[in-house]
């Protein structure tokens, strides 16, 4: 009795093992008859990881791709840009999502991993960083670059400060202390926001840009959702966060004035800033240099990249990776972004993105 039960348990365990092994061998990709956005479907499964800023965009794309192309499995883990790049270098993933292009030290390792060709940064998802605030009675707020820097550097500490009042004629500002929130965790949003402050308001912002908040004072909150909660629950507060979080929490957002008049943050106004960015990468590497001092578009933007091998990637992963990125850079793929709070890549830059994607081969 007990022996036969043991045998049965072992048999079931072995069957389970076989089933798992069958699943495991399912990776790699091939093609089937279907099409998505005019391109033939690829099947198989790939893994990717990285930036949490592009998590929702990637989720929407993966969902659309897997629905349109049965047999494709794409697993994107929003582990953070740093971890995503390390996973990619360690050959754990087919591509990495990142808030910033590869740094020199990582680029050398990634190029070495790709062997046959360099690792390339492909801008895919844009975002707008907005200043969400909670001041009762203030429905519209305009903040010049140096005032934003002053608020977050703790040199402008009350809402009725003359510098804020001068930019907002006709608005009654309370004599309350400003509760300025920054990210307490390391974050690409902080990195891009401080890059803006450093470039557009160098005289008022004397700190370095980076993923860690460097200025004194203010309060920290964890994650963009934590920032949105903090603004909702704290009177007289202001915080920087990605557009979608401010929209979801229904927070008031400030217009930004770089010297050419106030510009309301939106997908369109941010898209023009991103489209005007200059490419500083070489060949098919499209790492960008954003003009934060622009007066024609909304200036506080971020671009997240997909990082993969131009040549020499794992042959099993390349077809589906390329097909996915072809889809995400298509009009249909980019068209999904604005509705979920992101900013699409447009204009000449989008053409360059498509050229880079088409150059990917194993």
């Amino acid at each position, binding site marked *: 009795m007990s022996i036969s039960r043991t045998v049965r348990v072992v048999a079931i365990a072995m069957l389970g093992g076989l089933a798992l092994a069958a699943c495991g061998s399912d990776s790699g990709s091939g093609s089937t008859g279907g099409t998505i956005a005019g391109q033939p479907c690829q099947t198989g499964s790939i893994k990717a990881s990285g930036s*949490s800023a592009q998590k929702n965009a990637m989720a929407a794309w993966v969902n659309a791709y897997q629905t349109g192309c049965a047999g494709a499995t794409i697993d994107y883990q929003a*582990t*953070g*840009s*740093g*971890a995503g790049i*390390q996973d990619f270098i360690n050959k754990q993933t087919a591509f990495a999502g990142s808030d910033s292009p590869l*740094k020199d*030290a*990582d680029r050398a390792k990634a190029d070495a991993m790709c062997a046959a060709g360099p690792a390339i940064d492909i801008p895919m998802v844009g975002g707008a960083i907005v200043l969400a605030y909670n001041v009762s009675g203030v429905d519209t707020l305009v903040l010049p670059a140096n005032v934003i820097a002053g608020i977050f550097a703790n040199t402008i500490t009350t809402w009725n400060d003359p510098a804020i009042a001068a930019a907002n004629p006709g608005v009654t500002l309370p004599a309350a*202390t400003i*509760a300025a929130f920054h990210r*307490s*965790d*390391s*974050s*690409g949003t902080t990195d891009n926001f401080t890059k803006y402050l450093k470039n557009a308001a160098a005289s008022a912002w004397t700190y*370095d840009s*980076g*993923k*860690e*908040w*460097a200025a*004194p*004072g*203010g*309060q*920290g*909150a*964890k994650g963009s959702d*934590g920032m949105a*909660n903090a603004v909702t*629950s*704290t009177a007289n507060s202001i915080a920087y966060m990605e557009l979608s979080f401010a929209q979801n929490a229904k927070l008031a957002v400030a217009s930004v004035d770089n010297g050419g008049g106030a510009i309301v943050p939106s997908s369109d106004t941010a898209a023009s800033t991103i489209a005007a960015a200059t490419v500083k990468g070489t060949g098919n590497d499209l790492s960008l240099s954003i003009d934060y001092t622009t007066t024609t578009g909304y200036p506080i933007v971020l671009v997240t990249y997909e990082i993969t091998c131009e040549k020499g990637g794992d042959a099993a992963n390349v077809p589906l990776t390329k097909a996915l990125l072809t889809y995400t850079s298509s009009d249909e793929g980019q068209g999904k972004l604005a509705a979920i709070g992101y900013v699409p890549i447009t204009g000449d830059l989008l053409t360059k993105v498509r050229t880079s994607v088409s150059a990917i081969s194993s």
Partner: protein
Amino acid sequence: MSTTVEPATAGTAEPISIHGQAVRRGDRIFRGVSLFAGITILVIIGAIGIFLIWRAIPSLQANTANFFTTSAWFPDQTPNPVFGIAALTFGTLFTAAIAMVLGVPVGIGIALFIAQYADRRLASTLGFVTDLLAAVPSIIFGMWGLSFLTPHMEGLGQWLNDYLGFIPIFRNDLNQYSKSILIAGVVLAIMVLPTISALSREVLTQVPRSTIEASLALGATRWEMVRQAMFPFARPGMISAAMLGLGRALGETIAVALILSASNVINWHITEPGGNTFAANIALKWNEAGPIGLSALIASGLVLFAITLVVNTIARGIIARHAEFRESS
């Protein structure tokens, strides 16, 4: 154990044991198993220590600031990484100290009430509820602390500043009372309560009936009996309960990460936003850290590991001293 004779072959005449061979083999196996378990824990602790040191070295070599006296945390800054544990050590010890000051008296009070004062039905209900508190995951405490306690403690912070502001630690120069070390300390105090009260209750209920009755028979009031008969007996147990609580307070991660404003500064004003702890810093920085950043976080983890070892060693020392007193008296 040392008297065990090792038989060369099975079935030889061994006059000592009534049960014969079987017990000896069982003894030996059991000795081996428990020895293995004992060695395993040493190996694990040693392996963790070696891992932490090994992975910490690259960042400590790259660091251009003093690791022990610097407060800032910019390990991924190029070309000159700057980071140190001064503010982290301060925040970790300070929040844990607040948790101990608030949590230990209340925890022991709960235990004493359950063991001595409450009637049996109330005692068992209360015991159950405090144990239940131990099962609440720390993320729940964090969310509760952030969205409920933080706004509701601003009044207390204001009151402390208005009436006790002459004491430096209660003064608030920023007129902002949320996300402070005090709030984190209060949440930690609540989190360590069940550990302290459950263990203290166990040792307090183990005080011999005869000791209690002797004390009462000599004319002691109930409080005098508790002080003179129960506390001396239970003290080592209560201290180790507090130390287990302290261990949780030192290492608590996500609740603190959610609540604290997490700025790496040393600020004695406990109602002002700010402060950071080792565990919270690791949780907040890990995802986006580069190679030096990861190594720096591991180095800070090594310090936390060392602090907990030191704290536990001190606690062992205290318990051993009190145990001697008890035996000699």
